């Protein structure tokens, strides 16, 4: 079967759980920015958790189905409609051949995950179906969806209607969002005072927020510990000899606006980083709209590992609830 794209939405892409193993040549992890929502959407429609889904940002697409299928929408509160009639998010429903799936305006969050039984069956490139648009790699022709595209869908057994994820298992960021991070990498480049107000200040998501990275504005600029710049680093105090950027790392070019790199991260460059957002909180960033308030909370590695296990526990509960 296939899905006909009537309207593409803003930047709808095919994503699965990503493409690890090629960061050393600049090919990023890719995959759904909200991994919990990606896995959950697949579970609801009876797919493997790593099947390819559609990630719609800020605005939903309009899709016509050429055969019957089970569908579920998770993540952002982007209410689905089937032939114009409201359907519940986080809940499986049947779509009949010829029916059209569309969406209301976004109410909350940023990215919705649309799973279809059988999964979106684009070719596997370097082990993944995820789209890396900057490198024109993977997904549907290496790009976001356009009107007129026909997406192939695999064979799936589907699932019954009305399977739903309990509300307390739907994780979403608070307001202000609290993003926990482990200080490190080049943290020593900023003064103690700057380190204090980095955590004390409330930041705001800037309009430049996408799959590559999220930029934050509104906090005080960070002062640097004076030094003679090392050979090869460049003249600005925020410059380093170009190094790898971890997924989740927080760079602050010029000491002014922090950028958290996400699933389509540039893999390296010449800006210092103050630390790394913990793995458990990366899902939350994918659900932040521009202008949302956010704070960075410094944690140690043990706290990061504990949060990781809590998130894993949440995933386990979702699996149990849907088994």
């Amino acid at each position: 079967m296939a899905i006909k794209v009537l309207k593409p939405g803003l930047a709808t892409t095919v994503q699965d759980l990503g493409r690890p193993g090629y960061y050393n040549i600049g090919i990023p992890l890719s995959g759904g920015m909200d991994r919990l929502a990606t896995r959950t959407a697949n579970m609801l429609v009876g797919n493997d958790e790593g099947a390819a889904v559609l990630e719609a940002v800020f605005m939903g697409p309009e899709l016509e189905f050429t055969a019957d299928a089970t569908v579920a929408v998770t993540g952002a509160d982007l209410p689905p409609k089937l032939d114009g009639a409201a359907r519940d998010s986080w809940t499986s429903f049947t779509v009949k051949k010829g029916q059209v799936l569309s969406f209301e305006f976004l109410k909350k969050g940023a990215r919705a995950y649309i799973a279809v039984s059988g999964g979106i069956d684009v070719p596997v490139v370097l082990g993944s179906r995820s789209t890396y648009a900057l490198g024109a790699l993977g997904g549907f022709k290496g790009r976001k969806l356009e009107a007129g595209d026909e997406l192939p869908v695999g064979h799936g057994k589907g699932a019954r209607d009305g399977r739903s994820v309990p509300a307390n298992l739907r994780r979403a960021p608070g307001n202000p969002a609290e993003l926990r991070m482990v200080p490190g990498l080049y943290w020593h480049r900023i003064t103690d005072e700057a380190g204090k107000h980095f955590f004390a200040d409330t930041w705001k998501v800037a309009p430049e927020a996408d799959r590559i990275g999220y930029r934050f504005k509104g906090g005080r600029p960070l002062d640097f510990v004076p030094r003679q710049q090392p050979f090869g680093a460049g003249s600005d105090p925020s410059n380093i000899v170009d190094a790898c950027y971890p997924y989740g790392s927080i760079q602050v070019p010029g000491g002014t606006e922090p950028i958290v790199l996400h699933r389509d991260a540039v893999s390296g460059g010449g800006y210092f980083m103050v630390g790394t957002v913990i793995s458990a909180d990366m899902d939350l960033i994918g659900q932040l709209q521009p202008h949302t308030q956010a704070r960075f909370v410094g944690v140690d590695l043990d706290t990061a590992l504990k949060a990781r296990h809590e998130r894993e526990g949440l995933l386990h509960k979702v699996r149990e609830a849907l088994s």
Partner: protein
Amino acid sequence: MKTRYSYGGDEHIFVEMDEEMSLDAFFKALFITNAVRDAKIKGVTEICPANASMQIKFDPDVIKPADMLSELKKFESVAEKAEPVIKTRIIEIPVYYNDPWTHETLMRFRERHQDPKSTDIEYAARINNLDGPDGFIKAHSGAPWFVSMVGFVAGLPFLYQMVDRQRQIEAPKYLRPRTDTPKLTIGHGGCFGCIYSVRGAGGYQMFGITPMPIYDPNQKISYLRDFMCLFKPGDIVKWKPIDRAQYDATVADVDAGKFAPLMRNVTFSLADFHKDIDASNRKLNEVLHGH
């Protein structure tokens, strides 16, 4: 050199060999990287060498961060004792310096440049005390370059010239990054050269363009059929200045599937290089041209 370790959240360890760039720091990063890869440690998912540092990504549910750190420290002492000799490739990359496409782009973003009145190559020549664009091209293409890192975007090589520090070309990045850079632009920022593998934003000075693709996600280009990215850290690059006619001919050959880059296997010794840089580079050049 002072090695520094840092956790990058709960899934990464970052190792800085040195704050400043040198071939010694790069070799150490490369050797640790290779040792980690050979050790096939369970739970390690990414192993990334950089210019003077390296990074690994791992699953802390499989290997504890503290255990991962002590493994890495073992490799550091192994890397320090290893003889700095690598078997690698030298690749000739044709460059059309002062080409019309990067020229059009640099004129479009002139207000973001340190010196709006000259071109990037004129500016770089002046601040490096080289004799105009011709002197610059001679220095830029005269000695080979190491691929010291691949990244930023897919397949983009960072290059470090194999000359002593006094002869290193240095240039700042644009004051504000451009929103556009032609695909296959030869760029430079700090002490690093690069080839932009895809079109997009960029802040490096622009000196020319190569007709030879280095990244092909569709794997249609003859020499990128086996793998979509040409470069690996540790490759050696030698620029070959070409003119417009040679540029056009090479583009036509690439399109017809007839172009193959000049590429030779070579053994490089860092100790021999330090002993006599020019002699070491001459030897590389002889290997490249089959003498």
